[in-house]
């Protein structure tokens, strides 16, 4: 019994939107016919217009219900209002049952077609999503395998050494292993970040102070990269922004990691935040080699991660790291861009909407 009900709900789902579309469609059809009646005495066009309306209503609503309802309603409307005798139901006219059946058939058929079309679209979207997921998994697996091979190789080389290696060589191997492990960690953090954003791109936002988030990201980055000089500047006013701080820190970390991994000679990074109307723009600029023009336009579309997967390991992070940045910034309603600075080096920039509360810093004291 329940399953029948469920089936019925699947084929005949009711909704406010459905009812609104239905009434608007019917009203529209009637209006057009009324207008046409004023200029023409013939009523041949009337059924055509209502068939069109049935088609439109079926296309715009879910399931079969509204399409069929529209077909039945059209039959009555045509009979009652727009064919002789006007304002009277008369099914005795010659051939009328045929008209009735035709309209009903058109209604059902177009509803079915529309539903099929919509289902098709959904399937295609799902297939695409599945493909993206498979691609991501493939490239991630590849990306994880390379450093893991290096780590286990280096560590076993040190362990199985029988006195042939110098202290210096051992140290180098272990340092490489640590570097690779840290890279793996940031990769996993990125993947976890994506899972924090659910399918609909929704995140849990809290009011955070921008300068605190920036400085925490920099502290975390410095732990791993003590040799890079980092300068930060923030507006004098205290800026609160609605955000998921963990995710925004991830964006900053990815950008800084990027500067170091792909900038070549990067040894200085400048992070600055500026108020820009009702938004705040954060830029991460480095003094490295800049972004090769060849990939500048593809930085955020995720296509680079596959290039990396084809064996250019120096590129392996750029794709996923920046694609994650883009996902995060867009989930916050912001924008993301990249360019090469005229004075050399790359610059990444993203914007975030400011919270309602900003506290102007006047230098004065205010206590509670």
């Amino acid at each position, binding site marked *: 019994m329940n399953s029948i009900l469920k089936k019925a709900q699947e084929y005949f789902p009711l909704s406010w939107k459905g009812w609104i579309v239905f009434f608007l469609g019917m009203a529209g059809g009637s209006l057009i016919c009324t207008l046409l009646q004023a200029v023409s005495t013939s009523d041949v066009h009337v059924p055509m217009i209502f068939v069109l309306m049935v088609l439109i209503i079926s296309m715009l609503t879910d399931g079969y219900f509204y399409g069929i309802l529209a077909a039945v309603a059209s039959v009555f409307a045509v009979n009652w209002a727009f064919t002789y005798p006007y304002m009277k139901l008369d099914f005795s006219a010659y051939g009328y049952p045929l008209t009735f059946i035709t309209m009903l058939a058109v209604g059902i058929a177009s509803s079915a077609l529309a539903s099929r079309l919509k289902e098709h679209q959904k399937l295609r979207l799902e297939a695409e999503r599945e493909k993206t997921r498979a691609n991501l998994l493939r490239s991630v697996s590849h990306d994880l395998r390379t450093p893991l091979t290096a780590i286990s190789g280096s560590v076993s080389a040190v362990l199985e050494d029988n006195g042939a290696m110098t202290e210096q060589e051992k140290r180098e191997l272990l340092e490489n292993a640590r570097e690779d*492990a*840290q890279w793996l*960690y940031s990769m996993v*953090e990125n993947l*976890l970040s994506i899972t*924090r954003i659910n399918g609909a791109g929704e995140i849990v936002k*809290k*009011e*955070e*102070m921008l*300068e*605190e*988030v*920036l*400085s*925490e990201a*920099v*502290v975390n980055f410095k*732990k791993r990269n003590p040799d890079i000089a*980092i*300068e*930060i*500047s*923030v507006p*004098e006013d*205290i800026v609160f922004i609605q955000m998921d*701080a*963990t995710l925004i*820190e991830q964006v900053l970390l990815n950008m800084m990691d990027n500067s170091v991994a792909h900038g070549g000679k990067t040894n200085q990074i400048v*992070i600055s*935040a500026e108020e820009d109307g009702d938004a705040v723009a954060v830029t991460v600029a480095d003094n490295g080699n800049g972004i090769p023009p060849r990939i500048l336009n593809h930085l955020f579309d995720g296509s680079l991660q596959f290039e990396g997967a084809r064996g250019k390991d120096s590129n392996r992070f750029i794709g996923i790291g920046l694609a994650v940045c883009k996902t995060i910034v867009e989930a916050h309603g912001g924008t993301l861009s990249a360019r090469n600075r005229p004075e050399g080096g790359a610059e990444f920039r993203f914007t975030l909407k400011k919270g309602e*509360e900003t*506290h102007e*810093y006047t*230098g004065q*004291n*205010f*206590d*509670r």
Partner: protein
Amino acid sequence: MNIRDKILIVEDERSISGFIKTVLVGNGYDVILAHSGAEAFSMVSSHCPDLVVLDLGLPDIDGMDIIEAIREWTQLPIIVVSARTLEKDKVEALDKGADDYITKPFSAAELLARVRVAIRHTRASGIMTGSQKYVSGDLTVDYDKHMVTIKGENCHLTQNEFKIVALLSRCAGKVLTYDFIMKELWGPQSRGSNQILRVNMANIRRKIEKNPADPKYIFTEVGVGYRMVEAE
């Protein structure tokens, strides 16, 4: 030979507990290991360790329950090990009575610093409040004169701002949650938004730090609270 501090490591992943043990033993601590919550309980009561390093993700008992149970009868310091993304867990653990936390992945130096601070604070809980001054770099907090100076110059903190800095400096090296600070400052009934505290803190940063976004003295643990650098 002096008595060495005994540290209990509660961690189910043997590779991680092994790493922590190696670091601590190498730096002069006695280490005992527990691989489950049940084991941890019995070892806390039988071995009376000086400090517990507790991983929150144990297979048998929720880490929060372990903290609560230990806090029922002893104030021995607890350092919680947690993943970066779980700031809610960190705050809950601290509010339940953990002394500090350390975020994975951590370095040997970080771990040692946390352990040192936690042990010192329990040892010296009486003495710390008696000390006259906190000095770190150019910053001096003078508890008697109610004054914070940078290179000898008065920073002109307000009453509230001074109270916050004084509290943080007395617990230097340890993270203090927003809730803890607010209760210490404004009494146990202070509830609700921590906005006022955070704005106060932003003002303090503008007075004592050269660059408020690149602090040298007071660090923010976003979503959790603040930590002041250890005194010199």
